[in-house]
């Protein structure tokens, strides 16, 4: 197996809230090889965005890494200095955020914003960085790219802005790109375009991609590997193909059954997972999924099931139900 680019081991993150400290991540472990695309899937509050943000130390003042490590090319990002982290941000690891409407600065030109990482990390002059920014905008298929450098974000549509965000992320040819639900805020018609563009450009660069999504259709089309998260823990990881063909965690199974199928019985009701996603400040004991799990037994309420290998490249955190 290839040397992993990113290894997250046993990561725990807590957030300070009005109701005290909340455990947002509890022992999350993930591995990503160079050039691979990993999808992190889960409901809101499952910890998928927190995982992504903690890689770059972008949790903000309230969030705090309590334990575990994030090894990126042999460096533990939870322990490096703030200055070193700034060298990595935007340069080796780039981030694409969910909201293209609010993630671009309204008072700076698109050119400035796309050229900025090149100016910052590659130490190019502004004119040189601008020229590169123009090429990048052309690469993400923005029409008349060079002429649009002087335009402002409000002159772009949502889809175009997300293309700008992608151009900005690619600016320094990062080793890893993290895209946090990059298409959730967009029209359905542009979602596929944006994802294909993102996938193709990362492949071209040979970069790895972490794709955070709640859309299982996206996972199937674009990901090599999938991690399913629930209640701040990874409950199942497998190759995308494996996970679809053979989901082994009851939660993943429930998710798969909830996808409407074209060949299904037209009159049948859509499958749902009973109950509500858990409240992170008040997680159930043991396996967080047990109150909603049709197979739960006594062991599930007593202790948390560890993530264990059940096949090659297939792990799940479940005491078993077969």
């Amino acid at each position, binding site marked *: 197996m290839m040397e992993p680019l990113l290894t997250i081991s046993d990561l725990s993150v807590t957030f300070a809230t009005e109701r005290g400290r909340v455990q947002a991540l509890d022992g999350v472990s993930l591995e990503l090889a160079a050039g691979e695309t990993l999808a992190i899937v889960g409901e809101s509050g499952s910890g998928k965005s927190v995982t992504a943000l903690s890689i770059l130390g972008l949790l903000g003042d309230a969030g705090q890494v309590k334990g575990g490590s994030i090894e990126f090319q042999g460096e533990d990002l939870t322990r490096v200095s703030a200055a070193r982290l700034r060298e990595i941000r935007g340069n080796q690891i780039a981030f694409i*955020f969910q909201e293209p409407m609010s993630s671009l600065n309204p008072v700076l030109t698109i050119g400035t914003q796309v050229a900025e990482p090149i100016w910052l990390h590659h130490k190019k002059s502004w004119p040189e960085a601008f020229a590169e920014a123009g090429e990048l905008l052309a690469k993400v298929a923005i029409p008349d790219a060079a002429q649009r450098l002087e335009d402002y974000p409000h002159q772009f549509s949502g889809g175009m802005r997300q293309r700008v965000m992608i151009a900005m992320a690619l600016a320094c040819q990062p080793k890893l790109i993290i895209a946090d639900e990059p298409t959730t805020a967009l029209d359905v018609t542009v979602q596929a375009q944006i994802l294909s563009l993102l996938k193709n450009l990362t492949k071209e660069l040979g970069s790895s991609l972490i794709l955070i999504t709640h859309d299982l259709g996206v996972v199937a089309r674009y990901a090599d590997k999938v991690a399913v998260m629930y209640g701040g823990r990874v409950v199942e990881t497998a190759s995308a193909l494996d996970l679809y063909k053979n989901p082994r965690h009851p939660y993943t199974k429930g998710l798969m059954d909830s996808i409407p199928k074209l060949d299904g019985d037209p009159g049948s009701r859509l499958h749902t997972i009973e109950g509500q996603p858990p409240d992170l400040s008040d997680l159930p004991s043991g396996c967080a999924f047990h109150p909603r799990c049709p197979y739960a037994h006594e062991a599930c309420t007593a202790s948390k099931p560890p993530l264990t290998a059940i096949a090659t490249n297939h792990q799940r955190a479940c005491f078993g139900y077969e």
Partner: protein
Amino acid sequence: MQAFILRRLLAVIPTLLFTSVIVFASIRLIPGDVVDLMLAQNDISTGTDRAVLEAALGLDKPIYEQYFVWILNITQGDFGYSLWQNTSVAEQLSLTLPITFELGLLALIVALTVAIPIGIYSAMKQDTVGDYVTRSFSLLMLAIPSFWLGTLVMVFPSVWWRWAPPLQYTPFFEDPIGNLMHMMVPAVLLGLSLSAVTMRMTRTMMLEVLRQDYIRTARAKGLKENLIVFRHALRNCLIPVVTLIGLQAPLLIGGAVILEQIFVVPGMGLMLLEAVFQRDYPVVTGVFLVVGLSILVINLVVDLTYGFLDPKVRH
């Protein structure tokens, strides 16, 4: 853009007309009119003299007629003559307006150089000792009336150190240093009282802006905190702050009237105060018209500044 400026300038006219009616009427509503004062000063009070004096001053005509004569003259640049000194109001204004303008400008410079850096500092060091100190200072400046502080500055240094702020006005172009020495004290007092609100607004807006998604984007690029604040946050945060400065323009002029009195600055404020005491109608109305026009122009400038700060307005 030019059409916009022209439209805004045309909109000034009805506002000014409305102001002129209010000012023209209200000064005449103050008990004790100019004729009474003149007669009292000359210690002659017979019925015939009063009628003669009123006729001489043109105050015997109905008030609406006086108003129309006055407003028609103004459209031709004639602001009338002082009832007491018989000097031209326009000429007097041309002498006093630049002085008040200088005081206001100096105060604004003081206010901004104090408020914006401290506001930014306070936001960046939120909930630290530095933040508490600067916030308390701004509350203090907000609570202390500048006329009181002005009086203290006049009195205490002379008692303690036998030093008093200079009170001799010299025109700027004759002796810039002497002029600034004199103007600096009232300008600082006026500026500090203005800076209080501006500083708090800058702090609040900076904190608000620093929570925005695009600031997280800037962080994810690996920018240093000071670049994030100055390149990515400052302009966004200044848009509402500039509005506030425009809204404070009347306070600036109102404060100038009082401080000019305390520090014997021969500006429009001093001119206005004397004229009100003497019921010198043409002077009072003339000054107010200029003040009104200044406030409208300041707010036009504020609107034009938006275009510079906010690209959405420009396009």
